[in-house]
């Protein structure tokens, strides 16, 4: 047996906040368990059959007691609910603007991670301490779940739609990465490591194209340095031209398709009058199933790219579309 662990690492801002709540709940649990067990044992001994303790004044019911012991769990529950809901809204809410964006693809049975500058890793993730990290995740097959206990973060990775999560790592170190949703035969081998690095060390790692790795690497995982040197955006741009997306989607809204420039994060009005936000999920759907949401003023004529693009290439296209900013002069043209 190699060592004994009783407490998990605490390596993100969220982890510190969750632990406070966790230990509060633990205290509540221990208190009430001891209270009930203590009362049960005390009554069992004191009022055992044949004991001389007085039974005078035993009641069958007492409204004040009933109200009291309904309100106590209710109050404790409501306090914990509000406390936990606030933390949850932060963790699963929108990430800060300066977040480092990483794409995650889960598949039976490995994690594939892509950095914005094109570095790709399998079952390993290198990130700097102190900077928020946003993960945009999708599965190629069944449901997986991205779980880093040291960050107290878990988010299911679904086929067919993006899920996002963000966290801010605080402490440099090497932490477990697990798949937490049962995904088939090798589920318990769909594991890896998250390396949180000092920012300076991380910059070196980035500059070396992911070669300067501190930890040991298990076979079959690691950075695939050299395979793709192009950044996600560059790869996406290449693909965008290759697929001739620009034939219909120009720098300004055209006759055949709306412009992609400055599109990301904007509200889009659809033909049926509903308004949606152009986020990653919307872009993905519009590439793979263009007729699901047709923009107001356009005809449903775009062909589907489902089956032609794998998740990785879809992510590259989206990264490129996100990078397209509105040309400056259009702002001046506005009345």
């Amino acid at each position, binding site marked *: 047996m190699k060592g004994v662990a009783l407490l998990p690492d605490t390596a993100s801002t969220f982890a510190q906040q969750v632990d406070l709540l966790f230990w509060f709940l633990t205290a509540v649990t221990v208190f009430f368990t001891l209270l009930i067990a203590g*009362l049960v044992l005390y009554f069992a001994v004191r009022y055992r059959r044949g004991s001389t303790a007085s039974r005078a004044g035993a009641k069958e019911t007492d409204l004040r007691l009933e109200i009291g012991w309904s309100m106590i769990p209710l109050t404790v529950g409501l306090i914990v609910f509000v406390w936990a809901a606030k*933390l949850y809204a932060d963790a699963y809410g929108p990430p800060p603007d300066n977040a480092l964006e990483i794409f995650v693809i889960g598949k039976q049975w490995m994690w594939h991670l892509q950095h914005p500058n094109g570095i790709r890793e399998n079952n390993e993730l290198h990130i700097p301490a102190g900077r928020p990290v946003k993960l945009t995740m999708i599965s190629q097959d069944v449901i997986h779940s991205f779980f880093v206990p040291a960050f107290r973060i878990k988010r299911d990775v679904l086929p067919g739609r993006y899920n996002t999560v963000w966290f801010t790592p605080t402490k440099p170190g090497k932490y477990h990465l697990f798949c937490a949703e049962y995904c088939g035969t090798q589920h318990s081998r769909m594991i890896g490591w998250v390396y949180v690095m000092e920012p300076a060390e991380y910059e070196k790692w980035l500059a070396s194209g992911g070669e300067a790795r501190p930890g040991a690497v298990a076979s079959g995982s690691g950075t695939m340095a050299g395979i793709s040197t192009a950044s996600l955006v560059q790869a996406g741009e290449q693909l965008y031209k290759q697929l001739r997306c620009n034939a219909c989607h120009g720098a300004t809204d055209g006759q055949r398709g709306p412009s992609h420039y400055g599109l990301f994060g904007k509200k889009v009005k659809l033909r049926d009058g509903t308004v949606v936000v152009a986020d990653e999920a919307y872009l993905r759907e519009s590439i793979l199933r263009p007729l699901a949401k047709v923009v107001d003023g356009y005809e449903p004529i775009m062909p589907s790219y489902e089956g032609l693009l794998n998740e990785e290439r879809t992510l590259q296209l989206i990264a490129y579309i996100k990078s397209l900013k509105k040309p400056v002069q259009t702002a001046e043209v506005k009345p």
Partner: protein
Amino acid sequence: MSVAVAKHGEVKHNYLNAGDTVLSWLLTTDHKRIAVLYLVSVTLFFAVGGLLALLIRLELLTPQGDLMTSENYNRVFTMHGVVMIFLFLIPAIPAVLGNFLVPLMVGARDLAFPRLNLASWYVYMAGGLIATWAMVNGGVDTGWTFYPPYSSSYSTSQVTLTIIGAFLIGFSSIFTGINFIVTIHKMRAPGLTWFRLPLFIWAHYATSVIIVLGTPVVAITLLLVAVERVFRLGIFDPALGGDPILFQHLFWFYSHPAVYIMILPAMGVISEVVACFSRKRVFGYHFVAFSSVAIAVIGFLVWGHHMFTTGQSVYAGMVFSLLSFLVAVPSAVKVFNWTATMYKGHIEFRAPMLYVMGFLGLFVIGGLTGLFLASLATDIHLQDTYFVVAHFHYIMVGGTIFGYLAGLHFWWPKMTGRMYPEGIAKLAALIIFAGFNLTFLPQFVLGYLGMPRRYHWYPEEWQMLHVMSSAGAALLGIGYILPVFYLLWSLRNGALAGPNPWGATGLEWKTDSPPITHNFEETPIVTEEPYAYENHHQQEEVASGTGASTAEA
């Protein structure tokens, strides 16, 4: 089977000696005989589920997956879950104790639909045998939750067959539920008003309502998985145009209330036993009764707390979290009332009472650790870890199985006419209590450390906690085997019980042990409140001699 012998040596008629051919059992419509059929069946399936659990714990002694392949490990834990939930925990108390006691407790000759009751056992056996056949022919590896698209498009195991088995077993629960609802509404003895009903009946009424409303949903949902799997019709798999989250909503819409299907009947048992061995009316009778109803109603509105990490909207998460905290309140109210029942009572330490005391401690831990999972922020970390595994075993074993064993011992004299041996029964209760805690307390720590559930391999630094857990499982196994031996022994050798060995109130104690085929010589008329132990001092005196062979008329 044993036969109660009256003092003067004449063999009295009862439901057990009413016929001794195999057919007289297989074609019986007597609720008591059907309860015995169920008792034998659920015990066999419990043994299968228990052996699978021991295999899991043996494998997890070491961090490497070295006892079996990952493929087999996945099948073992899946079948442990399927067998324990569908074939043991859901039917155990309602179909064995409920079947036996509901007509007796309401003063009826049988359930409202005796043939439907027998059909329920046949449907249960058919489902159970199909599931068993699936198990021996390759097994199933999806987890008992059958999440698509893994179950519908990726697994190569016997998913469809297992689903057909679970589908059938669902119908057997529905039959039992309908029978209880109608019997409780229409067949109560004269004078037995709703608020004179034993709390066991209230609990089974609430359970039956959940069964009848919830089971069809899961039956249809599982069938849709089979349809997608066999006909490649896109329902849940995004590659076919389906939505995997839809499955989770439908599945948990039943499967969370199913937790209450499993625990509410145990709560009914606890109320009966704690009152009898405290010689007091259950404290706050109305609150205990209505808390069962409250649990049944609110329990239908909390399913989304199984899905906090799936990407459901933050606001939906908050609503489900809030409702989950609310559903904890009626359970807490019950625990406080049972504890208060012991206050100023005359407590007798019989084996059933030891199980009740164990239940109170373990259920409190199980319930309070549920708050960690209802609470959104902590659930993100604990979801799908061993913390969840430990939590639901505290409810399912510490709650349901402790309740089942309390009830089985408590009504064993009624069912068989014989007393179980008290000393060894108490020893078994203590071993089960110790073994259970040793098995599952370390799993809370493992879960907080981040150990995901359904893991065949695990990091080395967690081995010590797993070894503790496996040692506990061995002890628990010994504890479970003991009752099999001494209860079978008691069938021939136990002291004769007489109609009311505990001096308990309730109509079931006013007839012979074992009861005659039609339960009562004449329809009882109820004139008093339930648990009127204050009025029964004389009976108390009679009961004080252990298993006195009193065979009064």
